[in-house]
């Protein structure tokens, strides 16, 4: 599948990735090549095959809905790049 310039821009927007204008042609080529590679899957018919969710067909374990962690807010926030008064800082969202 060959991607055009707007496809790459759209994917980058969906992925929330800023990419340089000048890099777009290279992404077009590289991503198109990768999609050509993966489309080799289409050579085989899989209409009657069940998708595999887990290699040993294990099911998701459930646990009791109880608190297992203690509150360590300051410790867990220590690696945040911008914080104030126990809150993560982001640019203004609501005017």
């Amino acid at each position, binding site marked *: 599948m060959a991607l055009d310039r707007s496809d790459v821009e759209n994917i980058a927007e969906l992925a929330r990735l800023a990419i340089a204008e000048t890099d777009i042609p290279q*992404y077009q080529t590289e991503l198109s*090549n990768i999609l050509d590679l993966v489309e080799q899957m289409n050579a085989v018919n899989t209409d009657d095959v069940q998708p595999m969710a887990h290699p*040993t067909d294990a099911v998701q374990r459930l646990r009791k809905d109880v608190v297992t962690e203690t509150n360590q807010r300051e410790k867990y926030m220590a690696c945040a790049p911008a914080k104030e008064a126990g809150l993560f800082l982001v640019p203004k969202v609501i005017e």
Partner: protein
Amino acid sequence: MSLHNLTIAEISAGLAKGDFTSVEITQHLLDRIQQLDGQLNSFITVNAEQALAEAKAADERRAAGNATAWTGVPIAHKDLFCTEGTLTSCASKMLSNFVPPYDATVVENFKKEGAVCLGKTNMDEFAMGSSNENSFYGPCKNPWDTERVAGGSSGGSAVAVAARLVPGATATDTGGSIRQPAAFNGLTGLKPTYGRCSRWGMVAYASSLDQAGPIARTAEDAAMMLNVMASFDEKDSTSVDIEKPDYTATLNSDIKGKVIGLPKEFFRDDLDPAMAKTVRDAIAEFEKLGCEVKEVSLPNTHLAVPAYYVVAPAECSANLSRMDGVRFGHRCEDPKDLNDLYKRSRGEGFGAEVKRRIMVGTHALSAGFYDAYYAKAQKIRRLIKNDFVAAFENVDYIMAPVTPSPAFKIGEKTNDPVAMYMEDIFTLSLNLAGLPGMSIPAGAVNGLPVGLQIIGNYWNEAGMLNMAHQFQQVTEHHKQAPQTI
């Protein structure tokens, strides 16, 4: 014999006998890292002070009579296992400031035993790569020839062990990231069955494929490491609650009569003749040990690379969406709004290959494409798994090459992502099927190590280690050390 040439088993025995202390061997290896790692770049972080403190505590624990086989033994962790209080960068600019507030379960397991962590090893960024060239901290060099790649993504773990900077290191394998660097560096590496080791605290790349495992010099050492690494963990929802054997207990079992399958799709006519000969010669050793060899077929092998490059990018695009510049990791300067914060933080923080995979995955999961890509790939996984299940009805193990060639030159494949992806053609199918696989040293081509891949049935790591150990009792390949070091 110099302390750095000792295996984990020998160090464990030496500490128990009192031949040397943990502080002595830890200091010796730290000195060696300082002396040699400038040219190899296998470590991102060396924790000298903390390692010596852990060694001192281990010596005290031994004096108090509470030592285990691992107390005081030095190891290193791939820089994707979270280590409380120590940088865990995943070799990415994105996490170059990330000091986790907790330990990964695998890290905690080693701490409980009293093992000493020397530091964190280099890797491809977020474990995406086959050469260790995709590291924010620069490529790690192969000690057998420093113009060649270390392999990846666990290149630093492999190089540190090969260069005798540490006797064993943890690693992870999503598509070959333990086995391929082990092969390129003449080491023993094991990717366990999916669900054997806890993924808690491993920075996630592709969650349905990621699995932790050991890189060491011998099968015996790998067995000792797996004894610590493998555990059922409530905190990993895909961890499987299944009995864990003592992996060292069956190393010396007789392997006579074991049946080895050689998949014809892995020994194609276009396989490099020198590689094929090295691998076949190694398999002949197993025949001398009384094993029987027969051909098997894994007809969907050619679909592994295409399916992998849907599943892995799709899962990575979801997993890496947590890197948003808000809660941890790199944050851009002066964001003008929330979208700008996300886009520039991620654009600046991620390297080229990570961006490519996020974009492929985003495309594959976007509206209208899910069935054509992800659902299709999950169906192919079932076909690939069924091939192995059928083969294992007739054989005990499957053997194959690990890589199409020995370590390639640094820079040789960086401009062609698809060529780099084909590097993993022999390793990816196991991850898709969730099966365990090993790489053991099989010989050399042009002075560069070549690996033999041993593929076992689900949960049969003990049997694979037994096969590898018996091979290493009658061969010398695993004892070879790089001459440049």
